[in-house]
Every structure is written in C-alpha cells, then in structure tokens.
C-alpha cells in the first residue's frame, strides 16, 4: 500500500517526469514530503506560481515533453490561471497539480479553498477532482495521455489533502482507453489526393504554417513538401522555426507585423495551404478581404479550427507528421517559377528594414546581433509587445522549438520564466529571453529561481521606458496621447536589481558595445545575466497592419 502522495510521485516517475516546477503549501505538504526523498525528480522552487506554469510551458515547448507544475490550494492554485490560459491558447501540454482542502471541507469556504476546477474549466483541455485514492493513478496516467495527444493542452488535477494521505495499491496504467477521446491522426486519403492535385495545378501556391508544425515535430516533413513542390513558406508567430528562414523559399512571418512580401503573397496566391494554423485575427486582418483569390486547403488536428474563421475548399483533419509526407509524395512539381520570381522581386523592393541608428541603439540590431553571435541556434523566449515582434522579425530562426512566446493569449511576464524552463530542459542550448522593461517586471521575481539553480539564461531587456507597443498604437491612432504607458521615471535600475538578486547586470548605452556585451554574456555559465539595453525610445515595429484593416493596407514606416 502507498499513500496518495507516493502514488502521485511514482506515477510521475513512470511517466518519465524528471522536473517539476512548483511552490509548496499546506494542502500539498504531504506530497512535498515524498518529493523530499525522491532525488530522481528535480523540483524547481519558483517564487510565484505563475512563474511555475510559464516555466513548465517553456520547458514543454522547448523539449516537446509534458511540463509539470505543483502548487497548493487557494491562492497557489489561482496564481496558476494566467499560465494555464497561456498554455491553452498555444496548445502546450502541461499538467498542473493543485492541492485542495480535505474532501469533507470542500464547499465550506475553508481556509485556502478555491474552486480551481470551476475557475480553470474554460482554459483546460480536461480537469479532474480526485475523490478516491484508488482512482489517482488512473487519473494521472490518463491526464498525461490527454495532455500530450491530439491537440495538446493543459490539464488541472485537483488533489484534496485527505486523498494524498489515504492509502491504496499503485497500479501502473499502460493502456489508456477513453471512450470519447480518439483524436484523428491519419488524414483522409481522398482528401490528401485532392489537395495534392490542387497544389500540383497551382501557379502561385503558398504554405501558411502555424505552431502545429512545431508542436507536431513535422519541420522535416514540411521542408520536404516545400522543396519538392517549390512552394514558398510563410509562418505565423508560433510557426517560427518550423521552416528555416535562411531558405530562399522562406517568406518569414505574416500577419499584423509580418513581412510585406509574406502579406502580399498571401493576398495574391492561388492555392493557400494552411498547415497547423488557425487563421487567427492577427494573421488574417480584415476577414472579408483575406486572400480572396485563393483556393484553400487546411490541415489541422483539431476539427473545430476548420472553417471557424475562414471557409476552406479542402479540409484535412489529422496530424501534420502523418499527412505532410503523404501530401509531399503525391504533389508534383508546381508551376511556381514565375511566382517565385515575383516573390524575389517583392523581397528586394520591400525588405524588413530599420534605420541606421547612429546615436541610439536600435532594438532590431540587438536581435540581429544575438542571432549572429549564436549562429541562429539559440532558443529565444519573449515577452509580449514590441520586443516580441522584433524578436520574431529579425532573428531568422533555423530550428523548430526555438522560439517561445505567448502568441494566443499574449501574456506579458512569460519570457523570463519560460526561458528558465527551456534552459532547464535543454541544458546544451543557449537560451535568451528577449523582453521589455514592462514585461520583465511582471515576473522579475523568477530571477531568484535562475540564480538559485544556476540557470545561465541571458536576459536582453529592450529598455525604452515605455510600454512600447501600446505607446506605438497611441502614437499612430490616439494622437500621441501616451496615457499610462510611460515607465521611464518609475523604472528600477535593472543592473543594480540584477546584482541584488545575485545575477550579473550589464548596462549598454552605446552601439559599439552591443556585440561585445552579448559575447561576454555567453561566457557566464553559472548565473543569469541581465543586459539592460537603453534603446531608441520611440522606435516602432514596422510594417504594421492596423487592427481590423486588410493585409494589403500595411504601414511600412519611414527609414
């Protein structure tokens, strides 16, 4: 017989879990007692439960494994909500174990009681309140199965304190059979054949690739299809890295801050193949004018994504890794020569660009320098806003799972904890967190976590003293009325702050120091580095499609 806590820890080990991100408390004290004598599982003590969820999320995105979070009841549980919602929107598999008051007390407004199952219902793929210790092992193994298969997503398992103390016999569950849960993996073969014909007959085909190709580990399969058909590729924010941006067929990112040529290509193509993407509003701009001349093929594992925003001609429900090879095999070379020439021309005429920035450090150059110094091999995590968009535009990603960012929910404060999680999961990779002076402060307490566990993440703060993206909108659409977006005077001294935490703090105010400081940061292997870049304060992210406008109505900015 084992206690519920022992069963939980044994089940985690049987699932191959080696790292947990968490924060203890009264309701989970028994579980922590078991963890105390379980050296096989490394527990990373964060400083705020939101940090734990983002760290587990970054760990999951970077490694492809399931992230695991352990928190206590009540406030411990409610603090995970933003992290769970972030993972839900971006289809990231994490399992959040929340402590709960004893079964008999549930519903009595007990100390540190919160209905976390109710609170997280719309932002979890599935959730469980364990009412019988004999069910615990089944629930945990089932949760791992559901979180990591089909369209992945977060799961909450709520554990009343008495369940963790009650005894039962542990059974390892090898086969999971859930009557209502059978995600489709193989695409319909006739649909694939029809899609292949449509692509083969295209003159201006385009692959529009989303996070599904990263999540589905299908970058290689995607490359084969693009090469064989000579089809250009544009990716969404979360699709970055799924196709190497140094390939001539790459158009970079599309959408609100996408490249000019990617947006023109999407509006001008005759066959649009959406792969693991969901026609989000930041991608499509005004729906009624979106790619009206194209026939559309949509490959996605989630049937609800199909025809939700944009009607398509050929839907294929299934896993990209299963479908893309079949599609590549059936596609003949397309007649895309003229189209590729046109795209080359567009790339020449409207490249991504920024000013010379003689006096001030331009953020785009910082990103390019990080890319150069790390040979585009680093894992990048970002916050949300200008820092995120520059990191998306200028890094030129080569590898899948190398760009970690809150795309769907747009969560500020994601960058630092996600970087820590990614670095813990991928020890041999260099991990940069590209953040702003606003977002950095939203989970800055996690610097302690990085220092404590000697996690050498490199934090590049693009410090402009503004909530930059909102300021940009205010500049362009609200008559430069910078309502509550000026941070400058209220900002702390990030260098001193880093030092206070026991990290390395570096300030960069001159262009000529950018590269040398980034190189220097790479030499520090035992603690985090905070690089406080004083950047051009009112630099904007361009090009830009105003919210609700058509993709062709891009503002290009003046350089």
């Amino acid at each position: 017989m084992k206690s519920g806590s022992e069963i939980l820890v044994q089940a985690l080990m049987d699932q191959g879990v080696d790292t947990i991100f968490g924060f203890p408390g009264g309701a989970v004290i028994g579980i922590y007692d078991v963890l105390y004598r379980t050296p096989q599982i490394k527990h990373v003590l964060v400083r705020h439960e939101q940090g734990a969820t983002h760290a587990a999320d970054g760990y999951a995105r970077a490694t492809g494994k399931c992230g695991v979070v352990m928190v206590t009841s009540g406030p411990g549980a409610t603090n995970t909500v933003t992290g769970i919602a972030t993972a839900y929107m971006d289809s990231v598999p994490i399992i959040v174990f929340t402590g709960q008051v004893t079964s008999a007390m549930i519903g009595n407004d007990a100390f540190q009681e919160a209905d976390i199952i109710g609170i997280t219902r719309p932002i979890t793929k599935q959730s469980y309140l364990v009412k019988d210790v004999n069910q615990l092992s089944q629930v945990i193994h089932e949760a791992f199965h559901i979180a990591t298969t089909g369209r992945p997503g977060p799961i909450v398992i709520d554990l009343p304190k008495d369940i963790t103390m009650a005894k039962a016999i542990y059974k390892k569950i090898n086969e999971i059979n859930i009557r209502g849960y059978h995600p489709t993996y193989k695409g319909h073969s006739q649909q694939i054949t029809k899609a292949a014909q449509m692509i083969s007959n295209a003159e201006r085909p385009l692959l529009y690739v989303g996070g599904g190709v990263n999540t589905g580990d299908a970058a290689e399969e995607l490359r084969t299809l693009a090469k064989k058909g000579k089809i250009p590729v544009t990716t969404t924010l979360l699709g970055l890295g799924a196709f190497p941006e140094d390939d001539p067929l790459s158009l970079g990112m599309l959408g609100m801050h996408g490249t000019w040529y990617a947006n023109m290509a999407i509006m001008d193509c005759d066959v649009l193949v959406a792969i693991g993407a969901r026609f989000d509003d930041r991608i499509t701009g005004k729906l009624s004018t979106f790619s009206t001349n194209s026939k559309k093929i949509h490959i996605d594992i989630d049937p609800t994504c199909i025809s939700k925003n944009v009607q398509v001609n050929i839907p294929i429900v299934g896993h990209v890794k299963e479908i893309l090879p079949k599609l590549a095999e059936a596609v003949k070379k397309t007649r895309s020569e003229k189209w590729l020439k046109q795209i080359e021309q567009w790339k020449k005429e409207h490249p991504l660009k920024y000013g010379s920035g003689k006096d001030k450090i331009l953020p785009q150059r910082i990103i390019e320098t990080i890319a150069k110094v790390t040979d585009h091999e680093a894992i990048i995590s970002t916050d949300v806003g200008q820092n995120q968009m520059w990191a998306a535009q200028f890094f030129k990603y080569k590898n899948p799972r190398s760009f970690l960012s809150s795309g769907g929910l747009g969560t500020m404060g994601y960058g630092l904890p996600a970087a820590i999680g990614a670095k813990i999961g991928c020890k041999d990779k260099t991990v940069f967190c590209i953040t702003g002076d606003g977002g950095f402060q939203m989970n800055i307490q996690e610097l302690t976590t990085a220092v404590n566990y000697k996690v050498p993440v490199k934090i590049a703060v693009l410090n402009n003293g503004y909530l930059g993206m909102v300021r940009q909108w205010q500049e362009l659409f609200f008559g430069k009325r910078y309502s509550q977006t000026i941070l400058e005077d209220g900002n702390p001294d990030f260098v001193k702050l880093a030092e206070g935490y026991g990290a390395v703090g570096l300030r960069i105010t001159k262009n000529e120091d950018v590269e040398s400081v980034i190189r220097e940061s790479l030499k520090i292997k035992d603690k985090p580095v905070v690089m406080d870049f004083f950047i051009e304060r009112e630099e904007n992210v361009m090009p830009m499609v105003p919210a609700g406008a058509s993709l062709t109505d891009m503002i290009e900015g003046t350089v």
Partner: protein
Amino acid sequence: MKHTISVLFENKFNAIPRMVGLFSGRGYSIESISFGQGEEPGLTRATITTEGAEQIIEQIVKQLHKLVDVLKVVDLTYEPFVERELALVKVNSTPSTRAEIMQVTDIFRAKIIDISPKTLTIEVTGKSDKVNAAIGMLMQFGIREIARTGSVALKREFQGHI
C-alpha cells in the same frame, strides 16, 4: 434556425459544466437543454435545442464533439426525428371554469394529475409547439406555475414508403 442536437457522453465529474460552459463561454445560445441517463449506466444523453447561423451550429457540433467525455453528437435537425417535451402546468380553477379546463386538457390529450379547490395541475406531452399551444389555451384561466423539461429527441429509425 432552430437546431436539435443530441449528445451522448460519459457523465464524469465536470462533464455537464464543461458542456454548458462551452455555450456561455463562446456566446452560443441554449433554448433548452435536458439531461437523463442514457442506454447504459454512466452514460448520459443531453438534448440541446439552440439557434444560430449554419457556421455557428457547425462549430457547436464540433466543439461538443471535442469534449473528452463526449461519445457522440448528432444534429437531428436534418433527419427525421421524434421529439417530446413534458410540461406540468398549474392553473387556477373555480367550479365554473373546471369543466372548460378539462375540455382543453382532453383536446390536447393531456392529463390532470393534481387537483385542489382552487387549482388543477395538468401534464402535457408532445412536441414543443404543441406544449406551447396547450399553455396558450390555459393562460385564460390564470397560470400559477409551469415546469417544463425541455425537448428530448431521438432519430426516427424506420422511414418506410407508403
């Protein structure tokens, strides 16, 4: 257009709130929803009547199907189906109106299931429009309370020719 959707699901903890939450969270409307045990223990059948444009209905069906605990979703609207609703209607009655109420009850093939000196309680079954009509006719006597089950529906199996 009104749609009748039948959902068979494993009635595990949280399954019903997830189903209902899907409608409120995504802004879909529920006209009526009824739950009851399905063909085997542990299975529940929900009958949902809802309204919306075709694209919305398609999303509703897909989203319901996506729920982990859901086994089967059928939009019955496009096939022959049988549908019933039950309503209990408590109306005022006096010695002078009692006979007329009983007549109305007979016409709708409804039943009187409770009587008191001042009220009658009537059980009406049928399609929702029949139930509506019965309630409409009873209104003149003064309705005190109504309890309705919402529609329950199944696909019609035999569709023979005459």
